[in-house]
């Protein structure tokens, strides 16, 4: 212990001396110090001491910064490196057909930065050459067509802010509280501005037969992900997307082109989209029979449960964002509904006995994440925090009991129950389920 304390002291003094040096020298100094001390604890010391807070003046105020275009494509500050996708090792058999989660606790507003949108692959992330990529539309159409990326981008474009959620989001919570942080309990969720051409535009271009009623969407990755989409959705708001948050899609999100079915299961939003076949019945492929069907207590299973129903969760506080000292606090969270706009969000601090309506702090778009917030005067006692979304159809986010009464606890998908965070008096937050 004594040795450790000495070491800590040494590290701190190294870091403090480093603070007084210009950036480049400081980097060398720290590096040398690091080599000297074996690295442990330097990080902690560097941030704990001499930050240049008033009346001090930090090093970056007294030296030149780097030149323009040092980073031709800018990245987040290195100090934000903890804001990243993470995985749950035990969840899948391998890392190729697997999932990573959006760091919801650290995000602001309603737009998910493209680089941290959750990933879901069934055969890994393909490296698609856009010059060679084609989208084929055929089947019950007058004119079977092949579109290059250049072709697709000539059509009138449409942009919309919509959430994207894996229907298995929160699926690990059906039987009991399980995931220890927000990133894992709700992180198969994102919201982006998607730009592309309406699927209806392309279908009209090809001339859909009158008796056609379903479309098979298929990806060009090794899994050839395939889902049957009803014609009504295809002709409504389904979007053939090539851009996300102002730039071309990220590879992880289906570069160069994917399908987005707003408000519907993320799995139907086929990535690396290569083919749309128009038909008159569903294909009943693996991802719409063996998977993505909701098994009920009766042994029957619901199929084609496309819509992601209204849901919400508090993002601050949450396990990753424990609370500070008691007093006035700004509590906030996200709400979303696959059926349209969020109408109200209510927040409870006593496990659902009393509710207060929160206010929206973002734009309220249909089928988009909506941010809400509410002020709370915390007295420092343990509390049970919940949020409850109501959408424009009047649907009220259900309790776990209501959800289990209707569907049991084996359906894996579409868990949208009111979520409870237990706040301890030390400010820590734990995922719980209550009666």
């Amino acid at each position, binding site marked *: 212990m004594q040795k450790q304390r000495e070491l800590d002291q040494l590290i701190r003094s190294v870091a403090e001396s480093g603070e007084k040096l210009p950036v480049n020298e400081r*980097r060398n100094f*720290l*590096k040398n110090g*690091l080599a000297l001390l074996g690295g442990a604890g*330097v*990080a902690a010391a*560097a941030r704990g001491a001499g930050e240049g807070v008033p009346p001090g003046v930090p090093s970056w105020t007294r030296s030149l910064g780097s030149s323009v275009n*040092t980073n031709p494509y800018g990245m987040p500050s*290195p100090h934000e*490196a*903890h804001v990243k996708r993470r995985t749950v090792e035990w969840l*899948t*058999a391998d*890392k*190729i057909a697997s999932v990573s989660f959006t760091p919801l606790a650290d995000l602001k507003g309603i737009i998910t930065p493209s680089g941290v949108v959750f990933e879901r692959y069934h*055969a890994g992330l393909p490296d698609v050459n856009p010059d060679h990529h084609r989208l084929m*539309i055929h089947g019950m159409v007058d*004119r*079977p*067509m*092949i579109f290059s990326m250049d*072709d697709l981008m000539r059509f009138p474009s449409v942009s919309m802010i919509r959430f994207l959620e894996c229907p298995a989001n929160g699926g690990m919570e059906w039987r*009991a*509280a399980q*995931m*220890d942080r927000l990133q894992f*309990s709700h992180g198969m969720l994102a919201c982006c501005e998607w730009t592309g051409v309406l699927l209806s535009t392309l279908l009209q*271009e090809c001339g859909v037969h009158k008796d056609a009623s379903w479309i098979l969407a298929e990806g060009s990755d*090794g*899994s050839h992900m395939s889902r049957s989409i009803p014609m009504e959705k295809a002709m409504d708001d389904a979007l053939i997307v090539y851009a996300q948050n102002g730039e071309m899609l990220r590879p992880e999100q289906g570069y160069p082109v994917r399908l987005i079915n707003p408000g519907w299961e993320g799995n139907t939003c086929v990535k690396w989209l290569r083919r749309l*076949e128009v038909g008159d*019945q569903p*294909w*009943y*492929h*693996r991802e719409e*029979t063996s998977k993505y069907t909701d*098994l009920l207590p009766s*042994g*029957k*299973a619901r*199929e084609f449960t496309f819509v992601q*129903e209204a849901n919400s969760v508090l993002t601050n506080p949450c396990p*990753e*964002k424990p*609370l*500070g000292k008691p007093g006035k606090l700004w509590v906030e969270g996200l709400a979303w509904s696959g059926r349209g706009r969020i109408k*109200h969000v209510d927040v409870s601090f006593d496990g659902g*006995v009393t*509710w207060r309506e929160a206010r929206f702090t973002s734009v309220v778009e249909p089928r988009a994440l909506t941010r809400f917030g509410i002020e709370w005067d915390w007295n420092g006692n343990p509390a049970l925090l919940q949020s409850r979304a109501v959408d424009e159809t009047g*649907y*009220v986010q259900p309790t776990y009991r*209501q*959800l289990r009464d209707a569907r049991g*606890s*084996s359906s894996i998908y579409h868990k949208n129950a009111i979520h409870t965070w237990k706040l301890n008096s030390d*400010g820590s937050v*734990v995922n*719980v389920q209550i*009666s």
Partner: protein
Amino acid sequence: MSRFPEFAKRLGAVLLLAAPVLSAPALAEKAGHYGYGTPATAEQIAGWDIDVRPDGKGLPPGEGSVEDGEYLYEEKCALCHGSFGESVGGYPALAGGDGSLTDPRPKKTVGSYWRYTSTLWDYIHRAMPFTQPESLEDDEVYAITAYVLHLNDIVDYDFVLTQDNLTEVRLPNEDNFIDEERPDTNNKRCMKRCKDPDQIAIKSEAAAYVPEGGPDALYSEHEPEEDAVVTTLTGSGVYERHCALCHADGIGGAPKVGDAGPWADRIAKGMDTLYRHAIEGYTGDDGIMPPKGGFVNLPDDEVRLAVDYIVEQSQ
């Protein structure tokens, strides 16, 4: 089918000859409103049109026996799915679970849960084997499908699955799928005295998550935000951000961090060589190390820190 391309070529030649004779308006009628894109030929469609429906539409000619399927399955499928379809290492089980759908832990397999035989053929054909999708011949897909059916006691060992009899093979759970019936909950927007506070009990609790930085991150010690900050100047940090992409899993021939074997020879060349290769790039027998892993703006010092870290982890 084999004659088709030749026929198409001839047809194409005829159309080409005929094209100048067609009037311009006749061609215009054929195009869509915008006229973008290229008409898909039958041959192009055939190359990609792999889907199969429950009514058999899309099934190619072919056949495969349970017996042939057994050998193929052992070679190509058993590693992940188990010799009896019981599952290995978390990959999907293909057999068993009969009558388990109402159990607390249902076991969903081809025999206990899947709806149509066509789905099995389609999926094996489109996505299996996991590491080599679309590598199987049609007859091999019939054979493996037949064997998986046999593993589920749905067909006998002497059964031969064909294009013609596939739709007749019914799976036990076919009739247990129902259409969407939602919303199926009816919560009310109660605001006050919505439940009895004395009846509230914690039914389950996830393991407590300790924020990065340890328990000290909680307010009782100091402000949580401070511990969320990660410095750039540690080898592990640089590694996580810039190197782990390839070196964590060995992507593109990159030696995996922690694998002493592949690193021994490299480390033997000396740190200066390792630094130089990492900074300037290097082409080896197993693959290419791009300069600074492609992060050209990374300061040399940080690359060296990452190399130090990797070596430390891989000795």
